């Protein structure tokens, strides 16, 4: 039914447009004007429309920025993410200043110099001074942005560690994530797809001394304030491990190991008390209640952000940041992969 209605609307829209065209044509014939050349009248009208558009586009962008501010990601839950967000705010601020300067000028010029009866164009080839200004000003601004950006980049990608970060492997396959913790020795055992056999779905080398205490939970738990070095593997195609709340992302590439380190700074429980998050959850739950869906509770998520096949849109895992005490209690409950395999046999 909806389909039929949509089709009907489309057909009607087309018919309307065709009728409008017809009317335009007929009125054009009546006026005996050369229908293809622009007249002063056209220039006047179109120049005015351009000015209106310029105002409208600036106004609607401002409206969007105010109205949709609340849907954006809440504050960063990782240490480097705070720096990322600061860089983002500065870059955004800068491009908005440029945009809000150039757009009005562009549309104002279009309006002001619309070709009316007495308008004469000024022959003006170039102006070296002006061109020098608008080459060098962007150069200086960009140089600052580049240096600032590269500092943040290098802090993010090569953080200095006082002690060894905790190691967690994120293993990707169509269409799920599996986590593997390095265990008490903080060394991940060797693993390769060629060693996958039966319940050993990660291809763990069971003989490797480092493998003995590796465990593989259903969710990622991290103690707050603990630097974590994530390593990523993929079993089949490329995936991308995207942790939007931590401003972290790294591709998972079959045949190689990639890595990304970050330090969570806010526990899941604390984040749920953040005013932005409370508002967000309320709005989402209002929508969900209306649609008859179960309520939503805020969680950090890992999702796949590189096209990986038909169920790419649903590849997720919870990430829980908790206090050291909660984490320690959780770790005690975990069974090592080797124990699980033995229990299965």
């Amino acid at each position, binding site marked *: 039914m909806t389909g039929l209605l949509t089709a009907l609307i489309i057909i009607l829209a087309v018919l309307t447009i065709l009728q409008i065209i017809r009317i335009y044509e007929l009125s054009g014939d009546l006026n005996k004007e050369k229908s293809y050349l622009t007249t002063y009248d056209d220039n006047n009208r179109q120049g005015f429309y351009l000015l209106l558009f310029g105002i409208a586009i600036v106004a609607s962008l401002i409206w969007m920025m105010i109205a949709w501010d609340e849907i954006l990601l809440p504050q960063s839950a990782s240490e480097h993410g705070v720096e990322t967000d600061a860089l983002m705010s500065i870059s955004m601020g800068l491009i908005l200043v440029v945009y809000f300067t150039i757009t009005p000028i562009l549309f104002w010029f279009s309006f002001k110099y619309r070709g009316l009866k007495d308008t*004469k164009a000024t022959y003006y080839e170039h102006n070296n001074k002006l061109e020098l200004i608008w080459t060098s000003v962007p150069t200086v601004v960009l140089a600052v942005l580049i240096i600032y950006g590269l500092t943040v980049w290098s802090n993010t990608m090569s953080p200095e560690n006082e002690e060894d970060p905790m190691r967690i492997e994120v293993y990707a396959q169509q269409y799920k994530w599996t986590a593997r913790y390095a265990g008490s020795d903080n060394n991940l055992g060797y693993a390769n797809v060629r060693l996958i056999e039966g319940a050993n779905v990660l291809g763990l080398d069971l003989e490797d001394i480092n493998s003995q205490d590796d465990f593989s939970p259903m969710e990622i738990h991290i103690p707050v304030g603990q630097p974590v070095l994530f390593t990523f593997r993929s079993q089949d195609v490329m995936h991308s491990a995207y942790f939007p709340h931590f401003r972290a992302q790294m591709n998972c590439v079959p045949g190689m190991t990639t890595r990304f380190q970050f330090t969570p700074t806010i526990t899941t429980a604390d984040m749920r008390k953040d005013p932005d998050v409370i508002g967000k959850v309320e709005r989402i739950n209002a929508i969900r209640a209306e649609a008859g869906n179960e309520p939503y509770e805020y969680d950090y998520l890992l999702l796949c952000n590189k096209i990986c096949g038909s169920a790419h849109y649903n590849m997720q895992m919870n990430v829980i940041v908790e206090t050291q005490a909660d984490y320690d209690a959780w770790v005690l409950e975990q069974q090592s992969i080797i124990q699980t395999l033995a229990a299965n046999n």
Partner: protein
Amino acid sequence: MIAKQFLVTGILMGVAGGLMSILFRFQLSWPDDKFGILSSLLGKWAPEGQMDPNMYLGLVTMHGTIMVFFVLTAGLSGTFSNLLIPLQIGARDMASGFLNMLSYWFFAVSSVIMLSSLFVEMGPAAAGWTIYPPLSAVPTAMPGSGMGMTLWLVSMSLFIIGSLLGSLNYIVTIINLRTKGMSMTRLPLTIWTFFLTAILGVLSFPVLFSAALLLIFDRSLGTSFFLSDIMIAGELLNNQGGSPILFEHLFWFLGHPEVYIIILPALGITSEVISTNSRKPIFGYRAMIGSILAIAFLSFIVWGHHMFITGMDPFLGSVFTFTTLLIAIPSAVKAFNYMTTLWKGNLQFTPAMLFSIGLVSTFVAGGLTGIILGDSALDINVHDTMFVVAHFHIVMGLSAIFGMFAGVYHWYPRMYGRMMNKRMGYLHFWITFISAYGVFFPMHFLGLAGLPRRYFTNAEFPMFDELQDINLIITVFALLGGIVQLVFLFNFFYSMWRGAKAPQNPWRANTLEWTAPVAHIHGNWPGEIPEVHRWPYDYSKPGHDEDFVPQNVPMKDGEVGHS
């Protein structure tokens, strides 16, 4: 004639690619609803009106491929290079008519193959237009990686051959066949952009060809260029030692220059249209050439900004951030020069002029967000989100398509000897312009909310529930923008037969194509080829009666040429 073939084929492909985007917008906005129209169009891929996830990815992939290569590469530069190069440089024809014909027919055949892949049993290629292996290399990874992917690779290989033949021909023609007096610094900026576009194509397309060839080897001959340590669908592959990242490097070595292959001709067309309709010389002609050269050069050393988070060495990422952000400088110069051209002009708002101003606006809006994405530290969190989709659609998609529309409206009388209807042009421009921003401005916010691209539905993540309203707004504008293209199509085909007869120089422009007779004749000019005495931008020059002085008009005594 070949220009018209390219244009009409490009428009047909554009209709196909545009329609696909409407279909997947339907799915994104109303994931739970059933649409009879979907099942009638997609058949078994939309049983009972609900789209299959594989078909969704297939449509996304084909939309990207068709728009990037078939519409905005072949359709745009194929059309206008073939039309304008001989006419604007004062040549009887292209250097090799035969190569020219081959380039079109390779393109035509590749278009047919690409479209036919929509109808194969397992569906079209669906690994995204970037076809990253292993997804695209292993048929068991997804249905679209079977026959559909094979056809994609065959089609693209033919496409590349056609594109290379065309580009070589453009380069040779521009270098060798300029008429007397047409020095490089008297060339219209259109020709400069076509020239650099062709050079970019010749240097980068072969790399994509090699990537496609190696991928064909991996798929069919058991080689392991891009594959290593893979188990798909429970089956362990023998491949060992290859790297998917190698493919990304090869792909983006073309992929990035490709976006300039798309945008440069549009910028060239805009320069010409804005100058003509401002009745004023293009501001900073030499700076414009300089910035085209700078953009073309830089476009070869920035491809890694597509790969910041592939596990590439962070130092390499720094280098690519540096080179990428540099591109903002020549781009800014171009934008400022356009605006100064409008300043103190006598603006004639033909539909072509409106689309050109639209281009300047989208080029600025989309270019600015490039400063976010080109910055590796910021790219981490917006990579592959809807923010990227918004960015490249505005800066490259909209700008290029606006440039193409501007070109069509401006040179239609040159191609068909008739005029397009102005009022329909205005209607087309305004609705297109408004809906273009209506689609892509809101999309930035989706990306900043962390919404990934290429998701069949966002309903699996409750955190995205509040984004659904914005998705709906986008789709409404997309529908509106799609429908108004019918006005353009109608105007285009209707005017071929019923449009007003075109005068020789309807826009009172300076370039040589308007000195040739309206009726097409072999060799372009009936008598001698016109000789060039001045640059193409003598508009409103003091000391002349008219506000334009065509290039073939000799200098008056004591008149000074452009500096």
